[in-house]
């Protein structure tokens, strides 16, 4: 259990750094992104193009493919939901 939480913490940290850097969010530091903050729309303000970039980031960095974008809506809700998806699916294709 402790190991799982430690691993999730690392995934969340990596995700925040990736999103701030690779989506080139001006004035947003990785540590300012909340674990449960809504990423799209009124939350962090990401849009559909960012969703495609996150799909690419997951593929590049974690070897995970998201082929069904309906599934993506739930996964991309927050840093926590993406981190849980990565943790649950690492080592296997979604």
């Amino acid at each position, binding site marked *: 259990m402790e190991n799982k939480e430690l691993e999730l913490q690392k995934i969340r940290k990596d995700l925040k750094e990736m999103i701030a850097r*690779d*989506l*080139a*969010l*001006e*004035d947003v530091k990785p540590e300012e992104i909340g674990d449960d903050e809504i990423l799209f729309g009124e939350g962090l303000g990401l849009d559909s*193009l960012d969703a*495609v*970039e996150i799909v*690419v980031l997951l*593929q*590049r960095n974690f070897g995970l493919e998201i082929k069904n974008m309906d599934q993506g809506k739930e996964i991309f809700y927050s840093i926590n939901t993406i981190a849980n998806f990565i943790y649950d699916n690492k080592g296997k294709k979604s």
Partner: protein
Amino acid sequence: MKILGTGIIFTRGQGIGVLENSLRSGWVKPAEMDVPRTEGNTRPVYQVDLDAVQDRSLLKKLRRADKLSKMSVLAAADALADSGIADIARKKIGIILATAFGAQVTTFDFLDGILDYGDAAVSPTTFSNSVHNAAASYVSSSLNIRGPTLTVTQFRFSFQSALQLAQTWLEQGRCDYLLAGAVDQYGDVLGYIAEQKLTAAQDGRIKPFVFNPTCQVPGEGALFFLLGNDRTDSAYCSIDSVSTSGDPDCGKPVDINLIDADGMLPDESAYLSALSPDTLTTAYAPIFGSMMIGGAFNLATAALMLKQQTHYAAPVLDNPHALLLLSETGPAHIGSIRSIGCNCFGEKSVVYLSKLT
């Protein structure tokens, strides 16, 4: 055709005020950039630092854009603002963007993405930034400009070709005003090619009046002119003629010959045949760095000299051919300037600028 506004971003910063201060303060040693895949090797480069841009409002709108597009938008926005034309947003404005290499850095990033991750995991944003007209499109969309938009790509004389086309569009009435710009970006690939094919300036000093052997320091940046037919209070000068195939007015007297020599050709002796021992000669590549579009930055300097009626000393004065160099900065009476560029075939581009009367 008149230059009504100027916007510039280059290694020393952004804006016509920074250009003027740089011309007054003279040569500055370039930064040393790491050479990838070597053990601690560096090369001198005049690079643009976008992090140093103070007004971040435009950059916030451009978070997906690459550096080439960001530099273009910043310079174009400054050119509009510099013109001081109050209702400029309501005018029909065209955009012609000149470049030698376009989005080559982004294109290589995209290709690297395919090689590293496969074609299914390449960034779509990187691809969209790599297409030919991306930078001009960013200028159009972020500044809400709705006239015709074109990118001119040519190794040499691309900006001069853009000026010729701008003149045609203005004469045809296709636009009220034209944003004519030039942009190029430094990247590792260009740095490598320059090192392999040309001679790097070991001390960081481009020597524009040596001609052979030449030495270069890569540069990058963007320059935009707002062009129009009607004179305004803050206009810079008139562009009397532009030629990209020699000088049809070669006997015409001018006050200053401004040459684009910058070490981007291994032998630049062809400039000598265009110079006169009785006419002041100058060059400003050591301020901006070596670029195929360097002529655009020189033209901005010429426009500033005509507007301010000020001589700006050439920043590096090595003079083995005993030319009459512009060696002192100060007030002057300048009626006309001829800007001269040469390509590797010895062909010349010539732009005549004159003071507004």
